[in-house]
Protein backbone atom coordinates (compact mmCIF):
# COMPACT_ATOMS: atom_id res chain seq x y z
CA UNK A 1 0.00 0.00 0.00
CA UNK A 2 1.32 3.43 -0.96
CA UNK A 3 2.45 5.50 1.98
CA UNK A 4 0.99 8.98 2.02
CA UNK A 5 3.50 11.57 3.05
CA UNK A 6 2.52 14.23 5.54
CA UNK A 7 2.15 17.32 3.37
CA UNK A 8 2.87 19.84 6.15
CA UNK A 9 6.08 18.03 7.05
CA UNK A 10 7.08 17.81 3.39
CA UNK A 11 6.50 21.49 2.70
CA UNK A 12 8.43 22.51 5.81
CA UNK A 13 11.39 20.44 4.74
CA UNK A 14 11.52 21.94 1.28
CA UNK A 15 14.15 24.57 0.59
CA UNK A 16 13.93 26.81 -2.42
CA UNK A 17 17.10 26.34 -4.45
CA UNK A 18 19.17 29.52 -4.77
CA UNK A 19 19.93 30.11 -8.42
CA UNK A 20 23.26 31.64 -9.25
CA UNK A 21 24.00 33.18 -12.61
CA UNK A 22 27.08 32.92 -14.79
CA UNK A 23 28.31 34.87 -17.79
CA UNK A 24 29.78 32.53 -20.37
CA UNK A 25 32.47 34.23 -22.42
CA UNK A 26 34.83 33.75 -25.33
CA UNK A 27 38.19 32.56 -24.00
CA UNK A 28 40.17 34.75 -26.43
CA UNK A 29 38.27 38.01 -26.56
CA UNK A 30 36.32 38.10 -23.30
CA UNK A 31 33.17 38.73 -25.34
CA UNK A 32 29.96 37.63 -23.61
CA UNK A 33 28.27 34.63 -25.21
CA UNK A 34 25.37 34.36 -22.82
CA UNK A 35 24.02 34.58 -19.28
CA UNK A 36 22.92 31.27 -17.75
CA UNK A 37 21.66 29.91 -14.43
CA UNK A 38 24.18 27.64 -12.70
CA UNK A 39 22.55 24.37 -13.77
CA UNK A 40 22.67 25.39 -17.44
CA UNK A 41 26.28 26.56 -17.25
CA UNK A 42 27.65 23.55 -15.36
CA UNK A 43 29.49 22.20 -18.41
CA UNK A 44 30.96 25.53 -19.47
CA UNK A 45 34.66 26.12 -18.77
CA UNK A 46 34.88 29.87 -19.47
CA UNK A 47 32.39 31.47 -17.14
CA UNK A 48 32.29 34.01 -14.33
CA UNK A 49 29.68 34.36 -11.64
CA UNK A 50 27.61 37.54 -11.73
CA UNK A 51 25.24 39.16 -9.24
CA UNK A 52 21.62 38.06 -9.51
CA UNK A 53 20.48 41.67 -9.76
CA UNK A 54 22.78 42.19 -12.76
CA UNK A 55 21.46 39.01 -14.39
CA UNK A 56 17.92 40.32 -13.89
CA UNK A 57 18.86 43.65 -15.45
CA UNK A 58 20.29 41.81 -18.45
CA UNK A 59 17.18 39.64 -18.83
CA UNK A 60 14.89 42.66 -18.52
CA UNK A 61 16.88 44.54 -21.15
CA UNK A 62 18.22 47.26 -18.84
CA UNK A 63 21.76 46.07 -19.48
CA UNK A 64 22.84 45.07 -22.95
CA UNK A 65 25.51 42.33 -23.06
CA UNK A 66 26.83 43.94 -26.25
CA UNK A 67 28.42 46.54 -23.97
CA UNK A 68 29.77 43.99 -21.47
CA UNK A 69 32.97 41.97 -21.39
CA UNK A 70 35.07 39.78 -19.13
CA UNK A 71 38.52 40.92 -18.10
CA UNK A 72 40.50 37.78 -18.86
CA UNK A 73 43.31 38.58 -16.42
CA UNK A 74 41.13 39.37 -13.45
CA UNK A 75 38.22 37.10 -14.38
CA UNK A 76 35.80 39.91 -13.68
CA UNK A 77 32.65 40.97 -15.50
CA UNK A 78 32.48 44.57 -16.74
CA UNK A 79 29.50 46.61 -17.83
CA UNK A 80 30.34 49.37 -20.31
CA UNK A 81 26.87 50.83 -20.78
CA UNK A 82 23.85 50.00 -18.70
CA UNK A 83 21.04 51.93 -20.32
CA UNK A 84 18.50 51.24 -22.99
CA UNK A 85 19.21 52.73 -26.37
CA UNK A 86 16.80 55.64 -26.30
CA UNK A 87 18.80 58.83 -26.63
CA UNK A 88 22.09 59.83 -28.21
CA UNK A 89 23.88 59.68 -24.86
CA UNK A 90 22.96 56.00 -24.50
CA UNK A 91 25.09 55.25 -27.56
CA UNK A 92 27.69 57.99 -27.38
CA UNK A 93 29.69 58.73 -24.30
CA UNK A 94 30.98 62.28 -23.80
CA UNK A 95 34.62 62.29 -22.82
CA UNK A 96 35.03 64.85 -20.06
CA UNK A 97 38.05 66.58 -18.62
CA UNK A 98 39.76 64.92 -15.69
CA UNK A 99 38.98 67.88 -13.40
CA UNK A 100 35.26 67.16 -13.80
CA UNK A 101 35.64 63.41 -13.42
CA UNK A 102 35.62 61.41 -10.22
CA UNK A 103 37.90 58.84 -11.90
CA UNK A 104 41.67 58.66 -11.65
CA UNK A 105 42.27 55.47 -13.60
CA UNK A 106 41.56 55.84 -17.32
CA UNK A 107 41.83 53.48 -20.28
CA UNK A 108 41.98 55.96 -23.16
CA UNK A 109 43.54 59.43 -23.12
CA UNK A 110 42.90 62.27 -25.56
CA UNK A 111 45.05 65.38 -25.48
CA UNK A 112 44.58 68.44 -27.66
CA UNK A 113 47.66 70.60 -28.08
CA UNK A 114 46.08 73.79 -29.33
CA UNK A 115 49.23 75.67 -30.32
CA UNK A 116 50.62 72.70 -32.23
CA UNK A 117 47.14 71.84 -33.59
CA UNK A 118 47.64 68.22 -32.57
CA UNK A 119 45.08 65.80 -31.24
CA UNK A 120 46.79 62.88 -29.52
CA UNK A 121 45.13 59.56 -28.74
CA UNK A 122 46.79 57.18 -26.29
CA UNK A 123 45.94 53.93 -24.62
CA UNK A 124 46.82 53.51 -20.95
CA UNK A 125 50.04 51.65 -20.19
CA UNK A 126 48.02 48.95 -18.46
CA UNK A 127 46.59 48.10 -21.89
CA UNK A 128 50.08 48.15 -23.49
CA UNK A 129 49.62 51.73 -24.59
CA UNK A 130 51.90 54.72 -24.05
CA UNK A 131 50.16 56.75 -21.36
CA UNK A 132 51.37 56.24 -17.84
CA UNK A 133 48.89 56.88 -15.07
CA UNK A 134 50.57 59.34 -12.72
CA UNK A 135 48.14 58.46 -9.95
CA UNK A 136 48.69 54.69 -10.24
CA UNK A 137 52.07 54.15 -11.98
CA UNK A 138 52.33 50.53 -10.84
CA UNK A 139 49.11 49.29 -12.39
CA UNK A 140 49.33 45.71 -13.58
CA UNK A 141 49.20 45.24 -17.36
CA UNK A 142 46.12 43.58 -18.77
CA UNK A 143 45.93 41.09 -21.57
CA UNK A 144 44.18 42.62 -24.56
CA UNK A 145 40.73 41.28 -25.30
CA UNK A 146 40.25 43.23 -28.47
CA UNK A 147 40.46 42.50 -32.13
CA UNK A 148 43.16 44.92 -33.34
CA UNK A 149 41.12 45.90 -36.40
CA UNK A 150 38.37 47.19 -34.17
CA UNK A 151 37.73 50.85 -34.94
CA UNK A 152 37.24 53.48 -32.29
CA UNK A 153 35.21 56.40 -33.62
CA UNK A 154 35.51 59.82 -32.03
CA UNK A 155 32.96 62.50 -32.82
CA UNK A 156 34.16 66.08 -32.38
CA UNK A 157 31.07 68.19 -31.72
CA UNK A 158 29.99 71.56 -30.45
CA UNK A 159 30.70 71.75 -26.71
CA UNK A 160 28.28 69.49 -24.88
CA UNK A 161 26.04 69.10 -27.93
CA UNK A 162 26.24 65.86 -29.91
CA UNK A 163 23.64 67.26 -32.32
CA UNK A 164 26.22 69.54 -33.97
CA UNK A 165 28.99 67.43 -35.48
CA UNK A 166 32.31 69.00 -36.41
CA UNK A 167 34.25 65.93 -37.61
CA UNK A 168 34.72 62.20 -37.06
CA UNK A 169 38.06 60.57 -36.34
CA UNK A 170 38.45 56.80 -36.67
CA UNK A 171 41.33 54.92 -35.12
CA UNK A 172 42.10 51.21 -35.15
CA UNK A 173 42.79 49.96 -31.67
CA UNK A 174 45.95 48.30 -33.05
CA UNK A 175 47.32 51.79 -33.78
CA UNK A 176 47.39 52.52 -30.06
CA UNK A 177 49.33 49.47 -28.89
CA UNK A 178 52.73 50.84 -27.82
CA UNK A 179 52.05 53.92 -30.00
CA UNK A 180 50.41 57.28 -29.85
CA UNK A 181 48.08 58.23 -32.66
CA UNK A 182 48.58 61.88 -33.52
CA UNK A 183 46.22 63.80 -35.76
CA UNK A 184 48.22 66.71 -37.14
CA UNK A 185 47.01 70.12 -38.31
CA UNK A 186 43.62 69.85 -36.70
CA UNK A 187 42.17 73.22 -35.77
CA UNK A 188 39.30 72.92 -33.32
CA UNK A 189 36.94 75.54 -31.85
CA UNK A 190 37.82 77.21 -28.54
CA UNK A 191 35.46 74.83 -26.78
CA UNK A 192 34.35 71.49 -28.15
CA UNK A 193 33.36 68.04 -26.96
CA UNK A 194 34.43 64.56 -27.96
CA UNK A 195 31.89 61.75 -28.00
CA UNK A 196 32.58 58.09 -28.61
CA UNK A 197 30.90 54.72 -28.43
CA UNK A 198 32.36 53.31 -25.28
CA UNK A 199 34.53 50.29 -26.06
CA UNK A 200 36.68 50.68 -22.97
CA UNK A 201 35.39 51.90 -19.67
CA UNK A 202 37.07 55.21 -18.83
CA UNK A 203 38.12 57.96 -21.22
CA UNK A 204 39.84 61.21 -20.37
CA UNK A 205 40.24 64.46 -22.29
CA UNK A 206 42.71 67.24 -21.67
CA UNK A 207 43.59 70.41 -23.55
CA UNK A 208 47.05 71.92 -23.18
Amino acid at each position, binding site marked *: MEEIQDFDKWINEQTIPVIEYYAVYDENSGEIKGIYPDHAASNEIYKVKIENSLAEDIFSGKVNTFFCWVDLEEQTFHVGESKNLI*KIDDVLHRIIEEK*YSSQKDFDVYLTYERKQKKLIFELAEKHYGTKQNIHFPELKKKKSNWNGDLEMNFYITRYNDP*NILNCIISIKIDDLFKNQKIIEEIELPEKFSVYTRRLLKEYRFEEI
Partner: protein
Amino acid sequence: MKFGYLIIVSSTDNCDYLKMAYALSLSIKNTQPEQFANVALVIDDKQKLDALTSPWVFDKVIEWNKESFWDGRSWMDELSPWENTVCLDADMLFLDDISHWIRYFLKNSELYVANNAFTYRQELVDNNNYYRKTFIKNNLPNLYSYFTFFKKSSKIVNRFFSLNRYIIKNPDEFSKIFLSDYIPKVLGTDEAFALSAKILGIEDEIAYNLPFPRIVHMKPMIQNWPWDADKVTDRIGFYLGVDGQLKLGNYEQSGIIHYVEKDLITTEYISILEDILWKKSKTSING
Protein backbone atom coordinates in the same frame (compact mmCIF):
# COMPACT_ATOMS: atom_id res chain seq x y z
CA MET B 1 15.98 98.29 -3.71
CA LYS B 2 13.08 98.24 -6.12
CA PHE B 3 13.17 94.73 -7.54
CA GLY B 4 14.99 91.47 -6.89
CA TYR B 5 14.70 87.70 -7.00
CA LEU B 6 14.43 85.59 -3.88
CA ILE B 7 15.59 81.99 -3.49
CA ILE B 8 14.81 80.11 -0.29
CA VAL B 9 16.90 76.99 0.15
CA SER B 10 16.46 74.16 2.54
CA SER B 11 19.08 71.86 3.99
CA THR B 12 18.61 68.20 3.15
CA ASP B 13 21.01 65.32 3.01
CA ASN B 14 19.91 64.24 -0.45
CA CYS B 15 20.11 67.44 -2.47
CA ASP B 16 22.54 70.31 -2.67
CA TYR B 17 20.01 73.14 -2.91
CA LEU B 18 22.69 75.76 -2.38
CA LYS B 19 24.48 74.53 -5.51
CA MET B 20 21.22 74.78 -7.47
CA ALA B 21 20.54 78.27 -6.09
CA TYR B 22 24.09 79.27 -7.03
CA ALA B 23 23.61 78.03 -10.61
CA LEU B 24 20.29 79.89 -10.79
CA SER B 25 21.82 83.09 -9.49
CA LEU B 26 24.70 82.81 -11.96
CA SER B 27 22.21 82.33 -14.80
CA ILE B 28 20.23 85.40 -13.64
CA LYS B 29 23.39 87.53 -13.56
CA ASN B 30 24.37 86.20 -16.99
CA THR B 31 21.09 86.94 -18.72
CA GLN B 32 19.34 89.85 -17.01
CA PRO B 33 20.11 93.57 -17.22
CA GLU B 34 21.78 94.88 -14.07
CA GLN B 35 18.73 96.55 -12.51
CA PHE B 36 16.79 93.28 -12.86
CA ALA B 37 19.54 90.95 -11.66
CA ASN B 38 19.44 91.36 -7.87
CA VAL B 39 19.27 88.06 -6.02
CA ALA B 40 18.65 87.40 -2.34
CA LEU B 41 19.24 84.02 -0.76
CA VAL B 42 17.60 82.68 2.37
CA ILE B 43 19.67 79.95 4.00
CA ASP B 44 19.95 78.44 7.46
CA ASP B 45 23.70 79.00 7.77
CA LYS B 46 25.61 81.75 5.95
CA GLN B 47 28.89 79.91 6.35
CA LYS B 48 27.81 77.39 3.74
CA LEU B 49 28.50 80.05 1.13
CA ASP B 50 32.23 79.74 1.84
CA ALA B 51 32.20 76.68 -0.43
CA LEU B 52 31.24 78.78 -3.46
CA THR B 53 33.75 80.39 -5.81
CA SER B 54 31.68 83.54 -6.34
CA PRO B 55 29.28 83.94 -3.42
CA TRP B 56 28.87 87.60 -4.41
CA VAL B 57 26.29 86.50 -6.99
CA PHE B 58 23.92 86.71 -4.04
CA ASP B 59 23.40 90.41 -3.42
CA LYS B 60 21.77 89.73 -0.07
CA VAL B 61 22.06 86.68 2.14
CA ILE B 62 19.50 86.22 4.88
CA GLU B 63 20.25 83.71 7.59
CA TRP B 64 16.99 82.16 8.72
CA ASN B 65 16.13 78.78 10.15
CA LYS B 66 12.68 79.29 11.59
CA GLU B 67 11.07 76.71 9.30
CA SER B 68 12.35 73.50 7.79
CA PHE B 69 12.14 72.22 4.23
CA TRP B 70 9.70 74.07 1.97
CA ASP B 71 7.50 75.51 4.71
CA GLY B 72 9.89 78.47 4.65
CA ARG B 73 8.51 79.61 1.32
CA SER B 74 5.25 80.69 2.89
CA TRP B 75 7.32 83.38 4.62
CA MET B 76 8.65 84.82 1.37
CA ASP B 77 6.80 88.12 1.79
CA GLU B 78 8.45 88.72 5.18
CA LEU B 79 11.87 87.40 4.21
CA SER B 80 12.35 89.31 0.98
CA PRO B 81 14.61 92.36 1.27
CA TRP B 82 13.15 93.76 -1.98
CA GLU B 83 10.19 96.06 -2.38
CA ASN B 84 9.12 93.98 -5.40
CA THR B 85 10.10 90.34 -5.56
CA VAL B 86 9.94 87.26 -7.73
CA CYS B 87 10.43 84.19 -5.57
CA LEU B 88 11.81 81.24 -7.54
CA ASP B 89 12.38 77.55 -6.94
CA ALA B 90 16.09 76.76 -6.66
CA ASP B 91 16.06 74.13 -9.42
CA MET B 92 15.63 76.60 -12.27
CA LEU B 93 17.86 78.30 -14.82
CA PHE B 94 17.39 81.56 -16.72
CA LEU B 95 18.22 81.28 -20.41
CA ASP B 96 17.18 84.70 -21.77
CA ASP B 97 16.53 88.26 -20.73
CA ILE B 98 13.02 88.19 -19.26
CA SER B 99 13.08 91.70 -17.78
CA HIS B 100 10.12 92.74 -19.98
CA TRP B 101 7.99 90.30 -17.98
CA ILE B 102 9.14 91.96 -14.76
CA ARG B 103 8.41 95.44 -16.13
CA TYR B 104 4.84 94.28 -16.80
CA PHE B 105 4.39 92.91 -13.27
CA LEU B 106 5.87 96.02 -11.66
CA LYS B 107 3.36 98.16 -13.51
CA ASN B 108 0.28 95.94 -13.32
CA SER B 109 0.41 93.49 -10.42
CA GLU B 110 0.61 93.27 -6.68
CA LEU B 111 0.66 89.50 -6.61
CA TYR B 112 0.98 87.15 -9.56
CA VAL B 113 1.53 83.41 -9.45
CA ALA B 114 2.52 81.42 -12.54
CA ASN B 115 -0.40 79.36 -13.74
CA ASN B 116 0.92 77.41 -16.66
CA ALA B 117 3.95 75.43 -17.76
CA PHE B 118 5.45 74.30 -21.04
CA THR B 119 7.01 71.09 -22.28
CA TYR B 120 10.56 71.05 -23.65
CA ARG B 121 8.95 71.28 -27.12
CA GLN B 122 7.16 74.47 -26.06
CA GLU B 123 3.73 72.84 -25.87
CA LEU B 124 1.41 74.18 -23.21
CA VAL B 125 1.07 71.62 -20.44
CA ASP B 126 -2.48 70.34 -20.03
CA ASN B 127 -3.79 71.32 -16.58
CA ASN B 128 -5.55 68.01 -16.31
CA ASN B 129 -2.35 66.07 -15.93
CA TYR B 130 -0.78 63.28 -13.90
CA TYR B 131 0.56 65.60 -11.18
CA ARG B 132 -2.46 67.86 -10.76
CA LYS B 133 -5.21 65.54 -9.55
CA THR B 134 -5.67 67.51 -6.31
CA PHE B 135 -6.24 70.69 -8.32
CA ILE B 136 -8.69 69.18 -10.78
CA LYS B 137 -10.77 67.13 -8.34
CA ASN B 138 -11.04 69.98 -5.83
CA ASN B 139 -11.48 72.69 -8.43
CA LEU B 140 -8.42 74.65 -7.33
CA PRO B 141 -6.76 77.30 -9.47
CA ASN B 142 -3.79 75.79 -11.31
CA LEU B 143 -0.94 77.65 -9.61
CA TYR B 144 2.78 76.99 -9.84
CA SER B 145 4.60 78.65 -6.96
CA TYR B 146 7.95 78.37 -8.80
CA PHE B 147 7.51 81.92 -10.09
CA THR B 148 5.69 84.22 -7.68
CA PHE B 149 5.74 87.99 -8.06
CA PHE B 150 4.67 90.15 -5.13
CA LYS B 151 4.83 93.69 -3.82
CA LYS B 152 5.89 93.67 -0.19
CA SER B 153 3.66 96.59 0.81
CA SER B 154 0.47 95.16 -0.68
CA LYS B 155 -2.44 94.25 1.60
CA ILE B 156 -3.51 91.42 -0.65
CA VAL B 157 -0.01 89.96 -0.43
CA ASN B 158 -0.10 90.15 3.35
CA ARG B 159 -3.49 88.42 3.51
CA PHE B 160 -2.47 85.77 1.00
CA PHE B 161 0.73 84.76 2.78
CA SER B 162 -0.77 84.98 6.28
CA LEU B 163 -3.41 82.48 5.24
CA ASN B 164 -0.81 80.42 3.40
CA ARG B 165 1.28 80.10 6.57
CA TYR B 166 -1.79 79.03 8.49
CA ILE B 167 -2.57 76.35 5.89
CA ILE B 168 1.00 75.05 5.93
CA LYS B 169 0.84 74.80 9.73
CA ASN B 170 -2.50 72.98 9.67
CA PRO B 171 -2.43 70.81 6.54
CA ASP B 172 -4.68 68.00 7.79
CA GLU B 173 -7.48 70.32 8.88
CA PHE B 174 -7.47 72.24 5.60
CA SER B 175 -7.19 69.06 3.52
CA LYS B 176 -10.18 67.49 5.26
CA ILE B 177 -12.38 70.53 4.75
CA PHE B 178 -11.28 71.91 1.40
CA LEU B 179 -9.58 69.02 -0.42
CA SER B 180 -11.97 66.24 0.46
CA ASP B 181 -12.51 65.16 -3.15
CA TYR B 182 -8.84 64.25 -3.49
CA ILE B 183 -6.57 64.59 -0.46
CA PRO B 184 -2.91 64.96 -1.44
CA LYS B 185 -0.28 62.88 0.34
CA VAL B 186 1.58 66.09 1.10
CA LEU B 187 0.05 69.54 1.05
CA GLY B 188 2.83 71.30 -0.83
CA THR B 189 3.43 74.93 -1.64
CA ASP B 190 1.48 74.81 -4.91
CA GLU B 191 -1.57 73.32 -3.20
CA ALA B 192 -1.33 75.79 -0.29
CA PHE B 193 -1.07 78.72 -2.72
CA ALA B 194 -4.09 77.49 -4.68
CA LEU B 195 -6.10 76.96 -1.52
CA SER B 196 -5.23 80.42 -0.20
CA ALA B 197 -6.27 82.00 -3.48
CA LYS B 198 -9.53 80.07 -3.56
CA ILE B 199 -10.47 80.80 0.06
CA LEU B 200 -9.70 84.51 -0.41
CA GLY B 201 -11.51 84.50 -3.76
CA ILE B 202 -8.61 86.17 -5.55
CA GLU B 203 -7.84 83.49 -8.16
CA ASP B 204 -8.62 85.78 -11.07
CA GLU B 205 -6.63 88.66 -9.62
CA ILE B 206 -3.41 86.74 -9.08
CA ALA B 207 -3.44 84.13 -11.83
CA TYR B 208 -4.95 85.51 -15.02
CA ASN B 209 -3.87 84.42 -18.46
CA LEU B 210 -0.66 85.97 -19.79
CA PRO B 211 1.80 84.82 -22.46
CA PHE B 212 4.45 84.79 -19.73
CA PRO B 213 6.17 83.69 -17.54
CA ARG B 214 7.17 80.99 -19.98
CA ILE B 215 8.69 78.20 -17.95
CA VAL B 216 9.67 74.78 -19.27
CA HIS B 217 8.76 72.21 -16.65
CA MET B 218 10.88 69.08 -16.77
CA LYS B 219 8.56 66.73 -14.92
CA PRO B 220 8.49 63.62 -17.10
CA MET B 221 4.77 62.80 -17.23
CA ILE B 222 3.74 66.13 -18.75
CA GLN B 223 5.95 66.02 -21.84
CA ASN B 224 3.19 64.67 -24.14
CA TRP B 225 5.13 61.47 -24.67
CA PRO B 226 3.29 58.26 -25.54
CA TRP B 227 5.26 56.42 -22.84
CA ASP B 228 5.85 56.71 -19.09
CA ALA B 229 9.15 57.99 -17.78
CA ASP B 230 10.75 58.36 -14.37
CA LYS B 231 13.01 61.21 -15.47
CA VAL B 232 13.09 63.43 -18.53
CA THR B 233 16.81 62.74 -18.96
CA ASP B 234 16.10 59.02 -19.30
CA ARG B 235 14.64 59.95 -22.68
CA ILE B 236 16.46 63.05 -23.88
CA GLY B 237 19.84 64.65 -23.28
CA PHE B 238 20.44 67.81 -21.22
CA TYR B 239 23.10 69.89 -22.99
CA LEU B 240 24.24 73.18 -21.48
CA GLY B 241 26.54 74.93 -23.93
CA VAL B 242 29.40 77.36 -23.34
CA ASP B 243 27.20 80.37 -24.04
CA GLY B 244 24.69 79.24 -21.44
CA GLN B 245 22.29 78.08 -24.13
CA LEU B 246 20.49 74.87 -23.30
CA LYS B 247 19.26 72.05 -25.49
CA LEU B 248 16.94 69.31 -24.33
CA GLY B 249 17.32 66.56 -26.89
CA ASN B 250 17.66 68.61 -30.05
CA TYR B 251 15.30 71.38 -28.89
CA GLU B 252 16.92 74.69 -28.05
CA GLN B 253 15.33 76.10 -24.87
CA SER B 254 14.41 79.67 -24.01
CA GLY B 255 12.91 81.63 -21.12
CA ILE B 256 13.25 79.78 -17.83
CA ILE B 257 13.71 76.08 -17.26
CA HIS B 258 12.57 74.22 -14.17
CA TYR B 259 14.80 71.18 -14.40
CA VAL B 260 13.36 69.23 -11.43
CA GLU B 261 16.15 66.58 -11.37
CA LYS B 262 18.25 67.68 -8.44
CA ASP B 263 21.52 66.10 -9.60
CA LEU B 264 21.59 67.68 -13.06
CA ILE B 265 23.78 70.63 -12.16
CA THR B 266 27.32 69.29 -12.23
CA THR B 267 30.56 71.02 -11.31
CA GLU B 268 31.18 71.39 -15.04
CA TYR B 269 27.89 73.26 -15.56
CA ILE B 270 28.69 75.54 -12.63
CA SER B 271 32.05 76.21 -14.22
CA ILE B 272 30.39 77.10 -17.56
CA LEU B 273 28.04 79.56 -15.85
CA GLU B 274 30.87 81.08 -13.82
CA ASP B 275 33.00 81.54 -16.96
CA ILE B 276 30.18 83.42 -18.68
CA LEU B 277 29.72 85.70 -15.70
CA TRP B 278 33.41 86.40 -15.25
CA LYS B 279 33.76 87.26 -18.95
CA LYS B 280 30.71 89.52 -18.70
CA SER B 281 32.08 91.24 -15.58
CA LYS B 282 35.46 91.73 -17.25
CA THR B 283 33.82 93.23 -20.33
CA SER B 284 31.74 95.64 -18.27
CA ILE B 285 34.81 96.71 -16.24
CA ASN B 286 36.93 97.24 -19.37
CA GLY B 287 34.10 98.50 -21.53
